[in-house]
């Protein structure tokens, strides 16, 4: 059997648990009150009985059995709430307000007994009252019993017990009501979120939770879910975009390759043109397409993963030194002055392979665009913010201010560089590597115009502090 929804909510369950705890502590509290009050009443009655017994024993010791007898008669007339029974040594009644002793086995020592007395109420009904008494032997051998009707005490205790039960029931009912109320409230707060989750599950990634402006946990959760969905949507859009971009990126070089093959085929068929050269050209084109494909794939994977794989702690200057060692002879060959300025004792965190490739791409670009007689400077330093900066400054033509953002986009190559080889993916990959490391790519003007040279370009790959 399934409980109604409201009883299955977490807040309701929680309320029931708290209610249980509360009820047991209330029970303990009432039990204490019971012991304190009811126990106290019994103790007081016992004290009174003992005092009465003492005063009668004192009278007996002073003036003998007749004096006791006399006082019993007097006291019975004065409507004292005590019950008396004076007996001969063989426990036959001499006088008193009850007929026989409730003490069953009397050894002679003072003995307590609980019993019941019958009484007639105002309407003539027989009433049984609980009573209690003390029996003891007098020094002359007679036996004296003094008791008291404890009916009123008992009624008082009963009242407390009934009140406790009522209070307990009230606590439970109020608690359940409270539980239902809290559950309702929480459920209402959750319903919005559940609806959003359902909508997203059904494919509507645009669903967002309504904020109620209460700034409570539910609002925080809703805001968190909304932000998560925003990111997810951006990432999905990125993937779609990446797919479109890959299609575009590969379609154009493949179209070129196909056209070239077709022309070569027609030429060879017509008996003109050199088939070997056509095939060599086709192979070279294919390699170009594959290189582009590799770069596109790396970018797409980095963007999809959102984080660099297998990050390690490493010395960024050592990484830069290794790459400079690879590029320095190339610069020298081209008549470019190459210098490296590497700060010691730095630490960065990232994927060395990707970062090495990013640096190589930046240097590839710098070498490609810097004319003979120019200079390239590779620098690694820690910024005052704690970020690690790899920068490559060249004295090439640079990139006009308005185009700097654009060259990082995939396949953008500026008009004046069309005749240089390369797929135009270099800086996009660098940007993707930087982003995957939580860093960024910054492009700025180089050292400025000097004669024919410059103004140059400064490319900085910035990694967050390790």
């Amino acid at each position, binding site marked *: 059997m399934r409980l109604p929804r409201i009883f299955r909510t977490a807040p309701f369950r929680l309320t029931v648990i708290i209610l249980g705890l509360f009820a047991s502590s209330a029970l303990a509290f009432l039990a204490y009150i019971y012991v304190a009050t009811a126990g106290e009443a019994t103790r007081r009655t016992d004290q009174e009985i003992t005092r009465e017994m003492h005063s009668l024993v004192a009278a007996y010791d002073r003036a003998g059995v007749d004096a006791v007898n006399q006082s019993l008669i007097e006291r019975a007339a004065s409507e004292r709430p005590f019950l008396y029974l004076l007996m001969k040594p063989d426990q036959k009644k001499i006088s008193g307000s009850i007929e026989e002793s409730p003490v069953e086995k009397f050894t002679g020592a003072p003995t307590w007994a609980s019993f019941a007395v019958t009484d007639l109420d105002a309407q003539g009904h027989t009433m049984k009252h609980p009573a209690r008494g003390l029996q003891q032997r007098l020094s002359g051998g007679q036996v004296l019993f003094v008791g008291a009707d404890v009916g009123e005490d008992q009624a008082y205790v009963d009242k407390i017990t009934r009140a406790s039960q009522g209070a307990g029931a009230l606590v439970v009912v109020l608690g359940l009501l409270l539980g239902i109320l809290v559950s309702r409230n929480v459920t209402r707060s959750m319903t919005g979120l559940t609806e959003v989750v359902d909508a997203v599950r059904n494919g509507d990634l645009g669903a967002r939770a309504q904020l109620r402006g209460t700034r409570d946990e539910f609002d925080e959760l809703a805001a968190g879910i909304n932000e998560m969905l925003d990111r997810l949507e951006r990432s999905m859009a990125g993937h779609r975009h990446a797919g479109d971009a890959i299609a575009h990126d590969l379609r154009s070089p493949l179209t070129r390759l196909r056209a070239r093959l077709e022309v070569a085929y027609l030429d060879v068929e017509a008996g003109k043109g050199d088939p070997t050269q056509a095939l060599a050209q086709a192979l070279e084109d294919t*390699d170009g397409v*594959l*290189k582009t494909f*590799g770069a596109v794939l790396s970018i797409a*994977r980095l963007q999809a993963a959102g984080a660099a*794989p*297998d990050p390690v702690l490493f010395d960024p200057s050592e990484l830069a030194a*290794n790459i400079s*060692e*690879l*590029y320095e*002879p*190339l610069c020298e*060959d081209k008549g470019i002055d190459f210098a490296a300025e590497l700060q010691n004792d730095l630490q960065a965190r990232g*994927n060395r*392979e990707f970062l*090495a*490739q990013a640096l*190589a*791409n930046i240097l*590839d670009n710098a*070498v*490609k665009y810097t004319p003979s007689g120019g200079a390239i400077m590779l620098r690694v330093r820690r910024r005052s913010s704690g970020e690690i900066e790899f920068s490559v400054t060249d004295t090439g033509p640079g990139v006009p201010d308005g185009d700097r953002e654009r060259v990082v986009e995939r396949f953008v190559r500026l008009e004046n560089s069309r005749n240089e*080889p*390369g797929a135009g993916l*270099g800086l996009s990959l660098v940007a993707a590597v930087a982003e995957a490391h939580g860093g960024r790519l910054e492009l700025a003007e180089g050292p400025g115009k000097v004669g024919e040279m410059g103004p140059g370009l400064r490319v900085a790959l910035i990694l967050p502090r390790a």
Partner: protein
Amino acid sequence: MRILIVEDDLEAADAMERGLTEAGNACTRAADGEEGLTAARDGEFDVMIVDRMMPKMNGVQLIETIRREGDQTPVLFLSALGEVGDRVEGLKAGGDDYLVKPYAFAELIARVEALARRRETGSVHTLLRVGELEMDLIGRTVHRQGKEIDLQPREFQLLEFMMRHAGQSVTRTMLLEKVWEYHFDPQTNVIDVHISRLRSKIDKGFDRPMLQTVRGAGYRLDA
């Protein structure tokens, strides 16, 4: 050389077999991992070329199995998965080299030859000798015709690799991977510049060049 080709792409396997046979090798083929395992257990091979992703038993499982059985034949993995992690996994399983698809045929041949050769010169030498060129691995010195040649540390490593693979073509990618330990392709001809520096040191002033450029493949050091 006897070469086992384990590749489920039959067309690719055909091309490989033809090229390797023309280069003077004896090839055996298997079309999936289980067939490859049987062939590897039955035959004696100098090199195995194993595709990573195959039906029935993939390349990694195949190599792990034969390595457990004590077979130390050099293995070249072929794979469409080229990330560093994939490479590491392949080498950990017992592969000796890793080539990402698609590859140039010259690259494949060069790597297969390098693997077969590595087995031949498995013992530890402190002196390498190729023709009139001598390399002392402990003293870190190089002599040609008794004349000492001064090399930078990287040039020394580069020459050591070329000497260990003397007579074989080595590709630019191989040099970048084995000497510099980078697994990406630079857009510029960085390796050529390093080779030409090395060449100017070991060949300049001698009667004939030892460091040859192999068209469409890479370089070769001849005795």
